[in-house]
């Protein structure tokens, strides 16, 4: 009789892996870690000064005193700004539970004070608020054919599967009643000239299909947002067809703009953040006038606020490719270049690196900008490894924050009113190298 466990163990042992790598190639990596720890000790005094001042700095709207990000020179990566708030989970006050859906990987979905048992398989689910609850997009495996979209009622009722298979991330109509996605009819990873997608609009709670557009070129063509209740912005990222199109429900696709990607769509569909302009920045576009309002040159848009007044942006104060050796002798004004990257050293960058010598690659800034001008209103610094920001009101944004890779919490920051905890901090693994993710806001 065959023992399936033994058989599996033997079979898995036959899966080929890489050749033996000599131990010498580890020494450079280990030296880098040692260097960071030495710098951590050396930078402790500066860090204490900065942190003591920063954690209690009240956030305030700057009345446009800070030059817009767009005014910075485009030829080089711009300098990071000085944060208004440096997060310290130990000193933040506790606010109410998030008014946006979030997930506790032990298997619980939270929505305000409501909880629903639900298991999400992926590290990168999408949780979208819809009328009456929220929809959850999950990757059940790395096989793109195994994705699912379910409706979870906010009142704790039965979960309803809306769709499954090779489906794209969902987008929700402004009224929260409908949800749209694409079904890939080809291989997303390779794509072929004959690959197509089917665009679908369905009831967000039942999955009943209301509109369908089959045979759209490109296996990864997908809806990126509703421009209004009856018009959807579609990104065609295929080799055979690219650019942005609009889909007026009941009709076909209409070419819209040549940009190749959509970074964010405001909930009302009146503002877009588009990638692919000639200068490499991200254009913020007013849909009604078709005018580019300003161009973001530092960071990546995360989400527009519900009324489109603000844009949350994530950015790295010290680029993650910069090494301790790069900064060991660097002075403000020096240029660090590697491969296709280039950055001009600033004092802010050196100060940030000194505050986090043991892992500045984990440090991000969450920046709130005026969506129509690009003027900076709030800059928050912290360990934001997930860097997912979800607006819960017209002025408040919720995001994941870590502390010394030892604990994590969801944090709420409000324009003009500072930051607070939206959940209690949860302890991560004792070992900073093996942390887990206790909270997920989804993408």
């Amino acid at each position, binding site marked *: 009789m065959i023992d*399936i*466990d033994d*058989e*599996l*163990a033997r*079979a*898995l042992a036959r*899966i*080929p*892996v*890489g050749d*033996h*790598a000599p*131990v010498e190639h*580890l*020494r450079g*990596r*280990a030296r*880098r*870690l*040692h260097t960071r720890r030495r710098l951590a000790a050396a930078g402790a005094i500066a860090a204490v000064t900065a942190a003591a001042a920063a954690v209690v700095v009240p956030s305030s709207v700057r009345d446009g005193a800070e030059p817009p990000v767009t005014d910075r020179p485009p030829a080089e990566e711009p300098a990071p700004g000085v944060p208004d708030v440096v997060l310290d989970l130990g000193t933040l006050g506790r606010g109410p539970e998030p008014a946006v859906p979030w997930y506790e990987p*032990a298997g619980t979905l939270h929505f305000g004070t409501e909880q629903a048992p639900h298991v999400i*398989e*992926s*590290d*990168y689910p999408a949780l979208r608020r819809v009328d009456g609850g929220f929809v959850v997009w999950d990757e*059940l495996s*790395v*096989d*793109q054919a*195994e994705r699912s979209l379910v409706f979870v009622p906010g009142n704790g009722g039965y979960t309803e599967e809306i769709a499954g298979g090779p489906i794209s991330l969902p987008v929700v109509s402004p009224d929260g009643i409908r949800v749209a996605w694409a079904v890939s009819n080809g291989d*997303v*990873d*390779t*794509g072929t000239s004959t690959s197509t997608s089917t665009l679908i609009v369905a009831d967000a709670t039942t999955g009943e299909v209301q509109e369908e557009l089959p045979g759209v070129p*490109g*296996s*990864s063509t997908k809806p990126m947002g509703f421009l209004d209740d009856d018009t959807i912005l579609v990104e065609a*990222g295929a*080799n055979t067809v*690219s*650019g942005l199109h609009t889909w007026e429900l009941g009709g076909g696709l209409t070419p819209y703009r040549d940009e*190749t*990607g959509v*970074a964010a769509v405001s909930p009302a569909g009146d503002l877009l953040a588009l*990638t*692919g302009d000639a200068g*490499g920045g991200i254009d913020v576009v007013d849909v009604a006038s078709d005018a580019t309002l300003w161009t973001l040159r530092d*960071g*990546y*848009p995360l989400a527009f606020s519900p009324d489109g007044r603000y844009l949350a942006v*994530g950015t790295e104060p010290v680029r993650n490719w910069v090494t301790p050796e790069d900064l060991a002798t660097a002075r403000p004004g020096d240029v660090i270049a590697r491969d296709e990257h280039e950055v001009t050293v600033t004092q802010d960058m050196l100060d940030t690196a000194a505050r986090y010598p043991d892992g500045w690659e984990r440090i991000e800034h969450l920046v709130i900008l005026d969506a129509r001008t690009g003027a900076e209103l709030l800059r928050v610094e912290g360990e934001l*490894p*997930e*860097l997912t920001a979800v607006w819960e009101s017209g002025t408040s944004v919720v995001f994941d924050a870590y502390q010394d890779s030892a604990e994590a919490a969801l944090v709420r920051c409000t324009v003009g009113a500072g930051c607070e905890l939206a959940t209690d901090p949860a302890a991560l*693994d004792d*070992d900073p*190298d*093996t*942390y887990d993710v206790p909270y997920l806001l989804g993408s």
Partner: protein
Amino acid sequence: MDEDFTDWYVALRPRVLRAVTIAVGDRDLAEEATAEAFARALARWPAAAALDSPVAWLLKVAVNEARTRWRRARLERRHLQRLAGEPQRHAPAAEPRDDALWTAVAALPERSRQVVAMRYVLDLTEPEIASTLGVTRGTVASTLSRARRQLAAALTHEETK
């Protein structure tokens, strides 16, 4: 000290790399993540040698490293302009072996792949896996049961070819 680490590395790397490869489903990513895990062990040597279960620790560090790289890639894709073409996914590119078993392994959910790697490559017990992943023993058992069914079907398929 260096000799001790070298011996430790040579002894553990093949098994850890195989486990990481199965856990992350991508050979190139697994090699990078495994190297980072061993570098972190070297940076804290000799304390790393005293870990209760060094292979489980190395696997977890490597999986976290892989996740960080996926996350970075995802953020960078948002940041960088997208070229006209099919967008990349964080899903595995290089596969160790294009056979039914590997396909079945790669198709497992991430958590299942980690459990399979720990059970069948690292030879950890269910309680040890539960402790490492921070889940209940029941979750490990049910995850293993599902994964076992899927992989056994792939094995049967291979044998009948």
